[in-house]
């Protein structure tokens, strides 16, 4: 399992971040991001995942995160949306059991 800090994530350009996540997940690791991804990064991650599904070894990802909190008017206008704590893993090892606004229950299968 890899836990990536906010500081490290803030320094990484989007594509580098997504590549790092996908490479780790494809190697069977669970990646925990302290601040998560922006909605645009999440969509890009899904796109990249779809390109890399090979229908044999890699069938996709499972993402566990909370909905983004409502923001103030100023941050809505000038700020960029930031995600919250996010767990990403290979779909055949990470499974969502229950997801609510403030609680996520997931099952991690160890090899």
């Amino acid at each position, binding site marked *: 399992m890899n836990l990536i800090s906010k500081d490290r994530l803030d320094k990484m350009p989007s594509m580098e971040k997504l590549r790092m996540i996908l490479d780790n997940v494809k190697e069977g690791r669970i990646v925990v991001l302290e601040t998560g991804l922006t909605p645009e990064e999440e*969509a890009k991650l899904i796109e990249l*995942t779809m390109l890399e*599904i090979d229908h044999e070894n890699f069938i*996709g990802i*499972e993402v566990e995160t909370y*909905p983004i909190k409502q923001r103030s008017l100023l941050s809505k206008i000038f700020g960029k949306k930031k995600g919250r704590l996010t767990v990403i893993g290979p779909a055949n090892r990470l499974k969502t059991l229950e997801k609510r606004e403030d609680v996520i229950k997931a099952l991690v299968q160890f090899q």
Partner: protein
Amino acid sequence: MGLILALKKKFGFIFRLFFRKDKVRIGIYGPPNAGKTTLANRILRDWTGDIIGPPSDIPHETRRARLREGVKLEVDGKTLKIDIVDTPGLATKIDFHDFLCYGLSEEEAKRRAKEATEGVIEAIKWLDDLDGVLLVMDSTEDPFTQVNITIVGNIEARKLPLLIVANKIDLPNAYPSRIKSAFPQHQVVAISALKGINIESLYKAMAEKFG
């Protein structure tokens, strides 16, 4: 090119406020099997007498986005002219084994899975060319899925008008209230696209939201 796209995403809503189009392009989004094609067919059947494509119980039946232009809705004396884009279901994983239990051969299942991955990418690309979104959710399912969260987040980031459609309310285990409490910042209309239940409320909401 990237800068223009970023500016369009960030400030497109300002232009939409001042320069109203005579026709708006509405994307129908959602996870697989939420009833997107059934809804597109319902809208088209009600207003043009036609359909957009065959619905199916097998997930990822729609693997290419389908566009129908110039559909005219008339609600309370107001006319709304829309282009409808029925998009493939969004997913973070696609396993061909899931299709085998529907009686597909391994070869067919693998082909469907490959086309489905391409469909997901196409659906995401379409988000940059829309004026509004109908996000279809299955009222019998948990709404807090990653797909729903990602779609809502992307629509909000693009500042596109959004209507959430809580579909399948004809089923006994449907709880549209769960969808309303999961996404309280957005208008939710509970319908059954299959049976046409409450469909007039959806048309009224569409005229108000997208018109």
